[in-house]
């Protein structure tokens, strides 16, 4: 008796096809990918390796990168970028987790409504929110100093945006405010997947709330937190609107990060150095993106 082989699925056939049937399905996507991703990135890298001279565009190797790294303010921009990324990532993670866990508490009525309200900072266009925060922070005329002085927390106005030490954390707070809802949303989804029977078993075994959270909830969220962290880090590295609207990287470069420098160079018609800085930023983001992809692949 002849045995019939099971019919293979579409994707399985596509993955093992040797007769070229895949071409009509894959080639259009490949073409679009090359057009929208590979070509612009290639063009960017090429621009970073060239310069405009008397004879037109000339290949200069890594000269633009050397100039970039030798800039007097390179160290400050690099330092600011690291501090900015750490502050905004940790801040958004902590605030997002706290909000997500708090919304799970039984004392919170209408958690769905609160969740929607807390999502607003993420939804509001960053230009609008940054402009509002800018006036909120104003030294002499801002609402923040007015409130803090009214309740007696400070005696004199704080120069939130015109103090060398305070400006970067102050602007980072706006980025945290803008991105923590994303963390909250993802962690909330992660919390829904925590196995209630495991928690109940832990409770029967005498585990307290803190032990439940530390030994069961946090390990269950590890995968979500890893991916959320990577996304937040990439957002932080590429962040532009909030800083530009509030301080333009000032005062005296104290809140300038790489993405701000990229824009400034481009605005100053220094396209080649701007491209070099963009490639540096791209490589930094790629490290996190590759880690993200690797994690996703392991999960699937």
């Amino acid at each position: 008796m002849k045995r019939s082989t099971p019919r293979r699925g579409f994707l399985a056939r596509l993955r093992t096809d040797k007769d070229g049937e895949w071409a009509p399905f894959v080639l259009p996507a490949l073409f679009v990918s090359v057009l929208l991703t590979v070509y612009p990135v290639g063009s960017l890298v090429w621009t970073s390796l060239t310069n405009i001279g008397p004879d037109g565009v000339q290949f200069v190797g890594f000269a633009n990168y050397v100039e970039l790294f030798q800039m007097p303010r390179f160290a400050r921009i690099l330092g600011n970028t690291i501090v900015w990324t750490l502050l905004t990532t940790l801040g958004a993670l902590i605030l997002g987790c706290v909000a997500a866990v708090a919304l799970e508490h039984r004392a919170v009525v209408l958690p769905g409504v609160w969740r929607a309200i807390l999502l607003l900072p993420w939804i509001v266009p960053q230009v609008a929110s940054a402009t509002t925060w800018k006036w909120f922070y104003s030294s002499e005329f801002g609402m923040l100093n007015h409130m803090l002085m009214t309740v007696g927390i400070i005696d004199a106005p704080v120069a939130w945006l015109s103090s060398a030490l305070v400006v970067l954390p102050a602007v980072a707070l706006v980025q945290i405010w803008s991105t923590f809802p994303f963390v909250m949303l993802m962690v909330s989804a992660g919390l829904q997947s925590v196995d209630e029977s495991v928690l109940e078993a832990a409770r029967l075994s005498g585990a307290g709330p803190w032990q439940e959270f530390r030994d069961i909830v946090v390990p269950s969220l590890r995968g979500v937190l890893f991916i959320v962290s990577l996304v937040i880090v990439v957002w932080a590295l590429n962040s532009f609107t909030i800083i530009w609207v509030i301080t333009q990287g000032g005062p005296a470069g104290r809140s300038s990060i790489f993405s701000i420098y990229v824009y400034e160079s481009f605005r100053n018609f220094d396209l080649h150095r701007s491209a070099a800085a963009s490639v540096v930023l791209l490589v930094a983001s790629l490290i996190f993106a590759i880690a993200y992809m690797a994690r996703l692949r392991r999960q699937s």
Partner: protein
Amino acid sequence: MKTKIFGAATLWLLACGPAAAESITWWVPNWDEEAARELVASYEEANPGYDVEIVITTWDTMAQRILTAMSGNNPPDLITELQSRIVLYASRDMLTDVTDWFDRDLAREDFIDSALATGTFDGRLYAVPFRHDGSGLIYNRDMFEDAGLDPEQPPRTWEEFVSFGEALTVEQNNVITQYGTAWPFGNLDNAVVRYLQLLYDGGGTFFNADRTGVELDSPAAIDAMQRLTDTILTNGIAPRSSLEIDNTGLRELFANERIAMFKGGPFDVDPLVDAGMNIGTATLPGTGGIGTTTVDGFSVLVPGRANNPEAAWQFAAFIAQPDSQTRLTATFPANRIAAENERFSAPLLQPFLAQLDEGVPKPSAEGWGEMQRILFDHMQSILLGSATVEDAMMSANEEINALF
């Protein structure tokens, strides 16, 4: 003068008459769109067969878009662009030299000198200016009266400006509720312009005579920075939050009656009057009299690689006419005859018009953006208290000279 321009206009109309079948593309910023479409309609009606296609640009993207287009092989035929960027394009050989066409069809004496200067590079002309303006002093007449100052007698000199500012700064319960003035030191372009005005007013120059370096270590350059930063650090007539605002924020502070005077432009007047404010205007207070303003505005230029440069010039020459300039400019025209139009006769605008004769174009050079950045950072360092004026200017001078 008028005879020559009208004669030239007639010649030009004859030259490009109905037989010409031409088509050009004109890039226009969105705030000029309505007036530009009206002008095009008038021109196309008078010149059957001539077609102008308008493409709209926006302030945020126009510089990059224009630079990219002119670097490519298919730029538009005519572009409206900021005057202070023209020399940069000309120095890169990206523009059509219109000197001969201009002298053939138009009269230089009909244009404000500083407006033509913004489009001149190495003695050649590369653009037709149609909008031109500078700064003036805008003040709150009610606040002047409250401070016991005569609103009919605004400050005429820098010393008066400072003493008026002190009288207009109000402190209540150890908190300053009103300042004499403020500065847009949170914005690179706005801040550097304010410094340049004082630099020129004091007789200083940004570049040295042969443009091989800068002179920011000169006594005039140091004095200008000292005077400017003293208004915040020493005299206290301007708030420290000047470091946080740009020109728009500055106007907001004035509109909210937090400051009594500011250096603004003619475009600031209408919104403030419309908001019901009782304002006065004056020429800039300078050293011993009227101060110096930096001037800027908009011109039309023909890219070097334009497909149809001569047809573009025909339309540019039309824009140069007094009537066209009156209709197109959002502030003042660059054409002196157009400036006599009643549209510009409002008393509050007259000081701005008078100020143009004391106008100096903003510097423009390869790497100007980076030069501004260096100066701006050092200016902010002074205000943060991390550098003295002299040290900051010496450092700025050294860093900028390293760019040459």
